[in-house]
């Protein structure tokens, strides 16, 4: 198959994730969208690695997965904490860092 299809699917997935991040307010959904974007990138990396026959891309995919896992650990902790304190998972509610 042409690599272009992989790239197109990847771009599509990335855009879906991006739009989700921009328009949704639920923190958990935001997380899922971010995962989506990361996976879109993973797809690109894997496809490209396969096409050029190099191991770099695949190695990088592992890195991304590890970072994403770490992010989820920290992020879920934050979300749980937020929920206990504010009773909501709406990311627009906590505005302590505004001017």
């Amino acid at each position, binding site marked *: 198959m042409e690599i272009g299809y992989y790239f197109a699917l990847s771009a599509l997935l990335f855009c879906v994730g*991006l739009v989700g*991040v*921009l*328009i949704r*307010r639920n923190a958990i959904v*935001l997380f899922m969208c971010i995962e989506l974007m990361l996976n879109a990138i993973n797809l690109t990396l894997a496809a490209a690695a396969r096409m050029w026959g190099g191991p770099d891309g695949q190695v990088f995919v592992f890195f991304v997965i590890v970072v994403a896992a770490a992010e989820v650990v920290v992020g879920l902790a934050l979300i749980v904490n937020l929920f206990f304190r504010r009773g909501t998972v709406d*990311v*627009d509610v*906590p*505005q*302590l*860092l*505004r*001017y």
Partner: protein
Amino acid sequence: MTLLLAAEGHGEAVNEVVQATTGLLGLSWLIPVVPLLGFVLVLALTKTLRERAAFVAIAAAAVSFLLSVGVAAQMLGDPATYVRPIGTFIEVGGFEVAWDLYIDQLTTVMLLVVTGVGLLVHIYSLGYMHGDVRFARFFAYLNLFLFSMLVLVLGANLVTLFVGWELVGLSSYLLIGFWFEKAEYASAAKKAFITNRVGDVSFMIGMFLAFSVFGTLDFLGIIENAETLASGTALALVLLFLGGAAAKSAQIPLYVWLPDAMAGPTPVSALIHAATMVTAGVYLTVRLSPVLVQSVTGMEVIAWIGVATVLLGALIALRQDDIKKILAYSTVSQLGYMFVGVGVGAFREGIFHLVTHAFFKGLLFLAAGSVMHAMANRTDAWGMGGLRKVMPITFWTSAIGWLAISGVPPLSGFFSKDQILTEAYMHGYFGIWLLGLLGAVLTAFYMSRWFFLIFLGKPRFGHDVHPHESPASMTAPLIVLAVLSVAGSLLNPVHHGPLYNFLAPVVGDVSAIGYEAAGPIPELGLIGAAVVAGAIGIGLAFLVYVKGDLSRGRMLEPIRGTAAEVLERKFYVDEVYSLVFVRIGGRIADAMVWFDTRIVDGVVNGAGAGSLALGRVTRRAQTGLVRGYAASFLLGALVLVGFLVFSVR
């Protein structure tokens, strides 16, 4: 003519330069240091010493005087230029200024005048300042002044001289404003200080120029290399130093502070504003006379400023009624004579007049102080009269001072003034000679007026004043100064007398200038003219103020109407100055202030305010909304991608 005015001293002996660290000259550093110690001691122990402070100060002055006499004795025995090394003052790269003392014939003369008159004034103040609330502090200041003046006189380079120059200015300021409770006195002190700063700027620029030309500020270096000066540089140097000297010595156009300085206690007027500090300008110009002779034009400027000052001071003195103001304008006028002397190449005659003037003007001021003491501090000459019987000692000593300044032979003032005028004539300055002679007539007139109004006639004061002779501490200095005013003639009774020859090695050689006499009048004729001038002045004053009907009061004055008004208002010079410098200067200063506060501060504060305002606007971006940040993140990424795409293509 050749009888008295022997051949001009051509090719005079030049002093040998000797490093002196032993003997009395080795101790010469004590001369200024002892009064400094006196100053510190009196100030520190004011409470403990109280009235005894005077004796500490007098003792300090006496020690300085005795040391000066010792130095003078050594100088007479073995004349030379002695340099007493003390230590380094400033050392920057190749530039070195030392605290060294420079003792030659001129210094010796100045030392004796300063410490001698200084000592007498210290003693006089014991009686005059008795009972003053700040009695001890007065003596401390007198000691400080003595120290400063001695630093000025002894300094071996222009910087040390300048240190003394500024210190005497400070002492003068402190003493003029001694009774600072009166706002008028405090402002007189400020006027003196500020007017002198104008001259100091000129002096300093002169110093910088001298350094750039000679590469040194030591008098030795300057005097030795003076002959290498280009005429333009010499003229510039002369005029710049003249600017400094004119402020200190109250010459046109910077004389205005001196009459106001009379606000200070009378001993101060005698010591600082008649005998010593005001002559510092003359001292400076004579000290630099080897530079002066390189620019005849510069010297002519000095002579003309001098003679103009003679006339201006004398004319104003004609219609002043305050006995101290008359003497103050007289001082301005007499200092003019000294500058005439310097300007026409009669440096030594100028110094001679400086010395005799210190004697008789010191005497006259102290006499005026004695009169004020008797008259409960009144100073209006029209409210006096008839003090001859009441104050015999003051009367007789004043008479000597009056005759001396009026130019009556054989008193000292006659010789010194006549010698300057003769020299002016012999050096071809006919106009200056004639104007100087006119000045002599005026001097004799106003000084006679001063004397007659105070001492002769019937008393014109009310019964509330009970004049009495002053205490011995005041009359004794009067007597000593009176004797000196007479005996001063012996210093230089003929043109090329002892003082003239004594000072020969230290002054510039004028023989290269090639002066020629202004006309055929022989010297005896010139002397006769000077005698006649004095006689005319005294005679006229006698007719008006003794023979005249004094009951008519000021109506009697020979100068009436507009002329009198102009003289009484001192040619409106103060008014012009206050218009030009105070008002217009004030406007300029106001504009400067506006520029500073609005423009300069505005730019600085504006920068601060601007960044604050910018911050106030941009902090709105910090919404705390996560998705907003994500959006701007995206936007940035898009821009970057767009940029990459376009640049790759």
